[in-house]
């Protein structure tokens, strides 16, 4: 009847909708499906498409009447292919297109049905359109027509899914079924000529032309939507607005606006459903109130037209960019900074939303670094190490170019203080390492040079009363002991070159600074050069920044001669002395060409630094003249006589082949070699020892340091010192040439040349170092690990007893022992194991972890055989202690409870779940209503789930109602019993006598009306008029076959008894019929 009424309603509502409505309905249906998942074929796994009923009434149609478009691999199922196929093979079913009759809710129901089918746990492979139900064999139908089951799934077509969805919601798109009376029956068999395909529907007033064959989304008349802010300025799709009110203009030319939904996090939070007569409508807060006051967040608007097409646009409300607060700028160590922001991020919505960059500026506005990114969540930038004191600025720029700036101070514990001047205007400085030999020159000048654009034909000039002054600062002494090595003393003069000189060799690291007292003239200086006294440039700095007054920061690369590259100074007068003694025989320090020669020569030169005596006969060469050379052995060296000899230089190399009968002797600190020379030439005393042993470098700390718990701790006031020695072997060591080091190196990092002790940054570091000797021997890389800490530290190896309060922090709340969080320490309190694993930790945001390093909850317990143990169980049934209470929103109101009861016997053990309701008394009183109890019981299998418990459960599931044990009601759709023979044993088939007995028992049942008694808290049963009247059996009256434990009757046995009784009755009726028929024919069986 219902179906009849629906169809009648449908037909009467659209008498003109006839044959050709089918195409549009199909398309509409497809559009609905496609809106759900882009393509109807994608989520149904469509492998083929049917269309075009060639002929015949639906009652005898078969698949052979249809044209099929095969799917892959024959064809790719694309919307384009489908469109082409449908255009060439028109669908001539009997659909009815009824968009005007469908309310918005109807459409939603239809779409919901499609969605449900799409989301079925069992994927739909074939869906039987409703009209097919009526004409296929009965066995193909499901026995329950109210639902779609596998038996209904007979074949699949995307349009069939939609047909089903329409029909399931009371709007069959097909011709009425057998139960219906057809009014204005459509001609199901009319063939539409292809030439009329485009004009027929319009001629019959069915569908707009522009929606014909609209298999492609581009042909769909989707509603158009524009979102405006409170100033009527459009908010770009996926954009953000800083205003809280929006209005939404929706237009739809064909069916008109039919609804607007506001969604957040995928859920509709507000909506307006109204079919507007006009083709456009502007939704404001009068339509959807929340549009007038949106809070910060991201939203999605879905505009729906009256044909159920919809469009979605995302946008975000971001009233003000959230600037990083102080807490967001965390100092990870005393000299590094992490900048983060918790500004709202709406990456999913917009290219113009979200965090796009973070810049860190030094106290003088110079950019230290910038990170550019598109943060999907809170952005983190850093850490930046080695920051000096001062006020820094973090600038966060969102992708819409909103800028937030926040400052923070670094005030103490900085390992590097690059500025020893007290005027507070120097920001950073460039360090220059000066080679020892060059420093010997003893003077240094600093030349300022104009920028190119400041040059005039008259030469360089300063265009205002500028004063320049240079300073050379020894920074090796760190903060407290820095010395100004030299400084120009003529501020006030306009010079393009200033010179400062110093008299002593300063083997250290220098900082060169140049100052001007003219802040208004910031663009003059561009280059600083450092000259030695001979006019050779030994250091050049370049700069890209003009000075801003005060001391000018010189930045750029400085190139200076390095040790080993320097032309070594040669002796200039040693030959004359020797020449005076040896005519024709000379001792020379001619420039040497090989490293070995240099080595030998260096040694010889060193020996000759002491008085050298040359002995011979009248200094005239003869073959019998004994040449004797004596040298003082440098302090600390012992010579092996085998390694010393007199050698002759032949212009190319040195050799002892021209010296015969050589003897070497050592007497005290003097070594003497004698021999007979056989040729004229230059002779020298050579040490010919070899050095194959590398030097050894020792690491030490100059300043405060100590070892604590097997760790070397170093104060920031201390310096690292590397001391290398080249061990002498056989009395010779070539000497340490270079010491190199690298702090916290990564693989492949270059080592720096060690010049002098150097300060160390905060934190734990690994220092790697090695030395080379002049013979080229390289020491294996050594390493040292240490931790640099700020300031002085208290080291106490004993116990500390505090009689008063113990406070870690600067301001406490008055606790006896208190640790106050700081921003720079992630962990505020840690109790660690011997191997430093955190056993109990409290972070600086208040999360507490036990056995976890990074707690993710207010209280986070790490893995353990037993994570949390609670001991507040009750031992008497009236106990009210609770193991757990669940409060609301950080408070103790409306608390649900978990209570436990314990007994040494089986019964009496339970876990009770109580849910708060107003009957508890007040919102601050804990819950009093027990909804569920998990109980150990003596009956059944020892355990029971007891709902709304009262009394003692005696089954695995006891559904009570708080009044009567087992007196509750259970609602469910289906009740299934495990029935397979694999679950059972002792199986015996029942016989006629069992059926007869069941019939007798059923016939003897004495049904009664009754009410259940209620059970008082003390277990007493009492009459209770609140109990509903029921109809049933009395346990004591019932046959034993129905009786089960706990004075209950088995429903399953009652049902079995009924079935058996029915079978017995059927048998008797059959026999009775046979006997009657026999009597009728006068035959007695």
């Amino acid at each position, binding site marked *: 009847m219902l179906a009849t009424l629906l169809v009648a309603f449908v037909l009467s509502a659209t008498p003109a909708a006839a044959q050709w409505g089918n195409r549009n309905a199909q398309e509409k249906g497809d559009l609905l499906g496609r809106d759900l998942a882009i393509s109807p074929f994608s989520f149904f796994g469509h492998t083929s498409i049917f269309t075009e009923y060639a002929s015949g009434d639906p009652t005898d149609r078969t698949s052979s009447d249809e044209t099929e478009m095969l799917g892959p691999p024959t064809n790719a199922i694309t919307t384009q292919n489908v469109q082409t196929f449908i255009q060439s093979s028109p669908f001539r079913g009997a659909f009815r297109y009824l968009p005007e009759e469908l309310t918005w809710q109807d459409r939603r129901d239809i779409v919901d049905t499609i969605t449900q089918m799409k989301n079925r746990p069992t994927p739909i492979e074939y869906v039987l359109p409703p009209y097919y139900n009526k004409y296929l064999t009965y066995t193909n139908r499901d026995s329950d027509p109210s639902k779609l089951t596998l038996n209904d799934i007979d074949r699949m077509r995307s349009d069939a899914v939609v047909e089903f969805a329409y029909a399931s919601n009371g709007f069959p798109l097909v011709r009425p079924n057998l139960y219906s009376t057809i009014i204005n029956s459509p001609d199901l068999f009319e063939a539409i000529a292809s030439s009329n395909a485009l004009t027929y529907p319009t001629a019959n007033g069915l569908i707009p032309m522009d929606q014909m064959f609209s298999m492609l989304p581009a042909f769909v008349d989707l509603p158009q939507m524009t979102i405006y802010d409170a100033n009527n300025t459009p908010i770009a799709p996926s954009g953000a607005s800083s205003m809280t009110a929006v209005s939404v203009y929706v237009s739809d030319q064909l069916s008109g606006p039919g609804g607007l939904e506001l969604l957040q996090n995928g859920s509709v939070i507000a909506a307006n459903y109204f079919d507007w007569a006009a083709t456009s409508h502007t939704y404001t807060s009068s339509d959807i109130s929340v549009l007038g006051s949106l809070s910060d967040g991201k939203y999605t608007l879905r505009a729906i037209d009256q044909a159920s097409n919809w469009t979605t646009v995302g946008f975000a409300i971001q009233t003000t960019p959230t600037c990083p607060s102080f807490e967001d700028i965390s100092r990870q160590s005393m000299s590094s900074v992490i900048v983060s922001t918790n500004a709202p991020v709406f990456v999913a919505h917009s290219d113009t939303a979200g965090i796009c960059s973070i810049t860190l500026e030094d106290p003088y506005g110079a950019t230290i670094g910038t990170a550019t990114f598109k943060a999907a969540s809170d952005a983190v930038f850093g850490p930046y190490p080695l920051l000096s004191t001062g006020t820094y600025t973090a600038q966060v720029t969102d992708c819409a170019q909103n800028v937030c700036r926040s400052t923070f101070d670094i005030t103490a514990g900085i390992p590097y203080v690059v500025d020893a001047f007290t005027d507070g205007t120097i920001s950073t400085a460039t360090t220059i390492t000066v080679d020892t030999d060059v420093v010997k020159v003893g003077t240094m000048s600093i030349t300022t040079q104009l920028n190119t654009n400041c040059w005039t034909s008259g030469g360089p000039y300063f265009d205002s009363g500028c004063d320049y002054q240079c300073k050379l600062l020894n920074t090796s002494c760190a903060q407290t002991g820095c010395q100004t090595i030299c400084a120009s003393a003529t501020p006030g003069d306009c010079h393009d070159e200033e010179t400062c000189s110093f008299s002593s060799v300063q083997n250290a690291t220098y900082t060169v600074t140049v100052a001007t007292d003219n802040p208004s003239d910031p663009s003059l200086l561009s280059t600083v050069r450092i000259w030695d006294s001979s006019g050779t440039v030994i250091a050049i700095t370049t700069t890209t920044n003009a000075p801003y007054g005060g001391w000018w920061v010189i930045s750029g690369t400085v190139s200076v001669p390095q040790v080993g590259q320097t032309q070594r100074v040669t002796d200039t007068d040693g030959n004359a002395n020797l020449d005076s003694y040896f005519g024709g025989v000379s001792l020379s320090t001619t420039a040497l060409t090989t490293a070995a020669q240099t080595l030998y020569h260096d040694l010889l030169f060193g020996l000759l630094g002491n008085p050298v005596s040359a002995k011979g006969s009248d200094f005239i060469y003869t073959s019998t003249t004994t040449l004797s050379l004596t040298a003082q052995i440098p302090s600390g060296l012992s010579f092996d006589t085998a390694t010393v000899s007199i050698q002759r230089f032949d212009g190319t190399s040195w050799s002892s082949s021209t010296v015969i009968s050589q003897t070497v002797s050592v007497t005290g600190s003097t070594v003497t070699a004698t021999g007979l020379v056989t040729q004229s030439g230059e002779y020298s005393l050579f040490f010919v020892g070899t050095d194959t042993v590398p030097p050894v470098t020792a690491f030490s700390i100059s300043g405060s340091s100590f070892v604590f718990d097997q760790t070397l701790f170093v104060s920031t006031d201390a310096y690292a010192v590397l001391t290398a020695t080249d061990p002498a072997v056989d009395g010779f060591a070539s000497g340490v040439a270079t010491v190199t080091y690298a702090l916290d190196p990564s693989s492949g990092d270059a080592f720096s040349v060690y010049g002098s002790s150097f300060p160390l940054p905060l934190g734990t570091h690994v220092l790697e170092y090695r030395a080379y000797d002049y013979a080229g021997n390289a020491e294996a890389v050594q390493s040292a690990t240490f931790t640099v800490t700020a300031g002085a530290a208290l080291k106490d190896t004993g116990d500390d007893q505090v009689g008063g309060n113990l406070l870690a922090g600067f301001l406490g709340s008055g606790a006896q022992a208190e640790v106050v969080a700081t921003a720079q320490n992630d962990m505020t309190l840690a109790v660690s194991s011997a191997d430093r694993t955190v056993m109990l930790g409290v972070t*600086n945001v208040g999360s507490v972890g036990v056995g976890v390093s990074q707690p993710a909850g207010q209280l986070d317990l790490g893995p353990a055989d037993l994570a949390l143990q609670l001991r507040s169980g009750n031992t008497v049934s009236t106990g009210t202690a609770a193991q757990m209470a669940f409060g609301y929103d950080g408070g103790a109101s409306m608390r649900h409870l978990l209570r436990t009861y314990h007994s040494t016997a089986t019964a009496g053990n339970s876990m009770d779940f109580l849910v708060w309701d107003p009957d508890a008394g007040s919102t601050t009183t804990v819950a009093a209503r027990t909804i569920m109890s998990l109980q150990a019981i003596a009956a059944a299998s020892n355990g029971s789930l007891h709902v709304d418990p009262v009394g003692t459960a005696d089954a*695995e599931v006891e559904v009570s109602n708080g009044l009567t044990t087992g007196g509750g009601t259970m609602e469910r759709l289906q009740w299934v019993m495990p029935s*397979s023979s694999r679950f059972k044993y002792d199986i015996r088939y029942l016989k006629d006598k069992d059926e007869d007995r069941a019939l007798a028992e059923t016939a003897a049942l004495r049904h009664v009306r009754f009410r259940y008694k209620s059970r008082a808290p003390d277990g007493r049963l009492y009459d209770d008029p609140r109990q509903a009247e029921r109809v049933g059996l009395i346990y004591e009256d019932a046959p034993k076959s129905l009786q089960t434990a706990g004075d209950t009757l088995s429903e399953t046995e009652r049902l079995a008894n009924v079935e058996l009784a029915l079978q017995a009755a059927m048998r008797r009726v059959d026999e009775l019929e046979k006997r009657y028929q026999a009597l009728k024919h006068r035959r007695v069986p």
Partner: protein
Amino acid sequence: VRRFFAAAAVLLALCGTARAQTAIVGDAWIEGRVLVGTTTAARMTVAASSTTSVPFQVSGVDLTPFLRVGADGTVGFSTYSAAHMDAAGSADDGAIGLELRSGNWYGSSGRTQIAFGAAGTTNERHAIDSVHLSSTAHNSLDFRVWTPDAGTTSIATMTVLSLVTVASVTTPSGSVHVRPYGDPEVELVVSDGGTTGGGTIHVANQVTPSSRALKTDISYLTEADRLQAYEDVKNLRHVSFRYKHAGDGFWARRRRPVHRGLLYEEAPASLRGPGDGLVMDQRLLESELALQELAKKLETLDKEVGP
């Protein structure tokens, strides 16, 4: 200890008889013990005093309590404690109040998330376990209630309830499994610890959602349906049987109760449900239909026989 002291500047207030204060601006490294108000016990011990309501506290930068031990021994996490252990929280923002990480991987056991002891002891402990697996099925929350079989000081071994995910294609993905045994295939399975679905429900009333408003595709059954049901019921082959039970030996099986019913494999398709079970509601429906047909036959016979 090292992190603790490296993390903060420490102000040690050494309050002796003169109540002198010692301030350390910098780190403190203590190789020995820190004892506040006491001379004995652990590496760091704070003895409560009657003059201070809070013996120990870890505070935020604004001195809000992160971890607070009250003078009565209660512990609060970001709150003043109203219980032995009290954790603050917030509503509606996804925050987690208590996170436990001792779940068991499916197939293993031995770890307990929460144990509930009796009267301040570790006796007769009930427990909550969790089981985890990266696929849909077999993730569960298991509730165990102590019974004497476990031993007084041991944690409960009997699982009364399991909330478990299932991956069967014919059922939803969650199931409440009472006295669980085997894998559930429907939303509520009442087992008895040895036979899946072999448990008993004690309930006065069972109802089925039946309103027309809840249903679609309603069509009334016909005479053919009644005839079919009549034949189906007539051909039912009832058996008596016992349910198999995990772990039961021969004699234990003998003690299992005898039931009467049908075998899934022999029942008509119209009665069959998931998990090799028979739908009891369908059995009742078929009986009703068969009874109608039987009544009709009797009426026909009665008319033919006449008064």
